[in-house]
């Protein structure tokens, strides 16, 4: 069993290495300065505190959406809707930030809570559709992204828009609602602690609580869970709801920590990136922050590379794609794994 565990880690590392290698080859083919490009890609995020800050800032929302997606994955449910949940959570937190007068310690808590509830609501819909009527949560959660994107845009544009601003943005959030950026010159904010709490909560929930147990068993084998007396209908619903809460809080954290004004004009993409994070972390909540940091590192590096050399940031999508393909491909290195199994089986005979 332990050998299999080691195998999974090694497999992921090999996948990452191969993907990087391919990224380098592509860079080499398209760039006049491939060496510099790749160097700034790999080391760029560590060249200044500001850049390193960017990396951490980017990892925070990815951690939330990664946790949200992995929660659903553990129940063998898809959650392609983390995007919409994240977005709607941010919208709800914006409204609380603008309208509710509250003291400085309470205001962010309130905004986060409302953001979580908003995310929960968005997650509840595909959950209940699946549990009651067997509607594919993959389709419904994906569709709802666009529904709640529009709902959010409507709310901001028609009710909380700052008409004095030159761009289409919301009124500024009251300063009391902000999550303090405590490490200048970076924008690293108190949201990082909320993210750490979310990781701990998700871990305890999944592995140490009876509800998490029921959720995981439902994910491993639904007929078995049913047979054991687990109410799988309710499990499916609450897995999506809690997943929505985490994504919603993530959206709220991002809004209160970084933006201080709602200014998205399109879905920001964190929910979809959450799928990548969850896959890299193998749905293990403790691995999620690492995977989020890694993805944030790639993104920050690519950004720096695009700004300083002639290679565009899209190169990173090539690396990402290859990485995900190899990590998820069951057959990748399966022969090696089988030899391990055979060896162990022969020893135990």
């Amino acid at each position, binding site marked *: 069993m332990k050998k299999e565990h080691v195998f999974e880690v090694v497999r992921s590392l090999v996948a990452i290495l191969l993907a990087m290698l391919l990224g380098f080859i592509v860079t080499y083919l398209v760039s006049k300065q491939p060496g510099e490009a790749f160097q700034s890609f790999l080391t760029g995020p560590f060249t200044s505190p500001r850049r390193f800050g960017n990396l951490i800032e980017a990892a925070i929302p990815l951690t939330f959406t990664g946790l949200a997606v992995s929660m659903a994955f553990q129940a063998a449910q898809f959650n392609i809707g983390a995007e919409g949940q994240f977005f709607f959570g941010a919208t709800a937190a914006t409204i609380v930030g603008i309208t509710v007068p509250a003291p400085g310690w309470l205001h962010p808590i309130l905004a986060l809570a409302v953001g979580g509830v908003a995310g929960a609501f968005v997650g509840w819909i595909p959950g209940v559709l699946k549990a009651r009527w067997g509607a594919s949560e993959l389709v419904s959660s994906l569709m709802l992204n666009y529904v709640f994107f529009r709902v959010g845009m409507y709310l901001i544009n028609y009710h909380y828009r700052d008409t004095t601003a030159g761009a289409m943005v919301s009124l500024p959030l009251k300063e009391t609602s902000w999550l303090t950026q405590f490490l200048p010159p970076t924008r690293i904010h108190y949201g990082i602690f909320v993210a750490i709490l979310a990781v701990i909560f998700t871990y*305890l929930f999944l592995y140490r*609580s009876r509800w998490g147990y029921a959720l995981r068993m439902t994910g491993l084998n639904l007929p078995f869970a049913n047979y*054991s007396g687990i109410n799988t209908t309710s499990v499916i619903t609450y897995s999506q709801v809690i997943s929505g809460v985490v994504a919603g809080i993530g959206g709220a954290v991002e809004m209160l920590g970084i933006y201080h004004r709602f200014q998205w004009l399109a879905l920001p993409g964190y929910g979809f990136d959450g799928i990548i994070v969850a896959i890299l972390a193998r749905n293990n909540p403790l691995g999620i922050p690492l995977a989020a940091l890694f993805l944030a590192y790639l993104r920050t590096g690519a950004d720096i590379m695009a700004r300083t050399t002639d290679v565009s940031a899209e190169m990173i999508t090539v690396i990402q794609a290859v990485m995900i393909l190899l990590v998820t491909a069951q057959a990748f290195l399966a022969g090696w794994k089988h030899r391990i199994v055979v060896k162990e089986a022969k020893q135990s005979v």
Partner: protein
Amino acid sequence: MDVLLEMKGIEKIYPNGVVANQGVDFSVAPGEIHALVGENGAGKTTLMKILFGLEQPEGGTITYKGKPLHIASPHVAIANGIGMVHQHFMLVPSLSIAENVVLGLEPKRGLSFDWKTAVSQTEELAARYNLPVNPTARVQDIPVGMRQKVEILKALMRGAELLVLDEPTAVLTPQETTELFAALKKLKSQGHTIIFISHKLREVKEISDRVTVMRAGRLIGVTDTATATERDISRMMVGRDVVLHVDKPPTTPGDAVLRVEGVRYVADTGKEVVKGVSFEVRAGEVLGIAGVEGNGQRELVEILTGLRKPSAGRVIAAGKNVTGKDCRAVRQAGVGHIPEDRMTHGVAGLGTIEENLIADRYDSKALNPRFLLSLKSVSELGKKLVKEFDIRTQSPKTPVKMLSGGNIQKVVVAREFSANPKLIVANQPTRGVDVGATEFIHKKLLENCAEGAGVLLISADLNEVMSLSHRLAVMYGGEIVAVFPNADEVTEEELGLYMLGVKRMKLAAGSEAS
């Protein structure tokens, strides 16, 4: 003797670590009917899947018609004239028989499918091999026995000279079996070679020329059918005399722990699969239900255990009306259930042994002393049950799928029995389980019974139902057709007649209750 096929030193280890074949030697002479027998899980099907290219062995060689052959896929097998009829048919139900037979070898007229030629080809083939079918009928409308003929025709259409039949009679009625055997003999007379997988010794005696016996992934021996008795073969299969002698303690049954009253079930297809079944199980007794599989036993069990809702009737378990209630309610009433298919219902394969053991009590106060699950209590329970039920593993934290079939079944049994059920519903409790584990499970079953639990035992294994049960009932066509108040006074032959629907008792509704 001539050799058509020789498999030498075949080794197969599945990705889950199960060793299915260990140095198996197997050879077949041209033109013979060769029976391959062994208990469930002995590795017969695996060996044949290797022959047909569906599985790749870790070691060993295959020589076919005197030449070494590497069978990388079923295409290679088919190209070399090896055909296989699987236990579970691989036909397209919505297509006609002719279309199924020519699938992949479709006769063409220009660009379009030549339906007429397909039909005539099928007819011609059917006539030549004496396997009469109606080529234009749709597969979904024809009975199982006919489907099997279609499977055989399909293999013959592809030029099969060596035909592998994996437990072909498991789903057949006696008449269909007779017909099949006639067809097989005809095939043999026309020069075909047949490998016949079975564990029904009577059939093996009737149809085969030679027998190869496998046990626990190994070759045990090869013998001429004519010189071996059923008893000899069964001893080779099991490793000792088969009639597992069980010390069944005498019983004085108590009150009813299960009352089934006129339970009916109509399937989605509109067919009534359970037709008004009534019976009682009392505390301290084993009621066995014998019957050929597919006669409504599965549906009945699922209704009793909460996996399925009956269309009519009542189920009263341990004094509580649990009709149409879910599994949780049925469990809370005090019902334990050893399911027929352990990998589907019995365990979560990727979960650890511990996790599987707590599945029915994960939310109990004992395991959740405060807010969270107590890992300590879970691990203590795991250790205790692993020891008590002799689950062979390095650690209770091993994923269940790494265990052998017998040990996986012990995990199920450990969970179900340790909940102190008042009623145990055991459906095929020892299917695909090795002899040691079988004995252990039987012992535990009778122990629980002696301590006052009622046991409902459903098994297709006559030996098992007859040796464990105090009372016996027979299910046929969705009904209870016979009840024997004393299981020891019934012969296998007599049971057989009821199981095949040849005989039936006159049972007034509810008369079997006492």
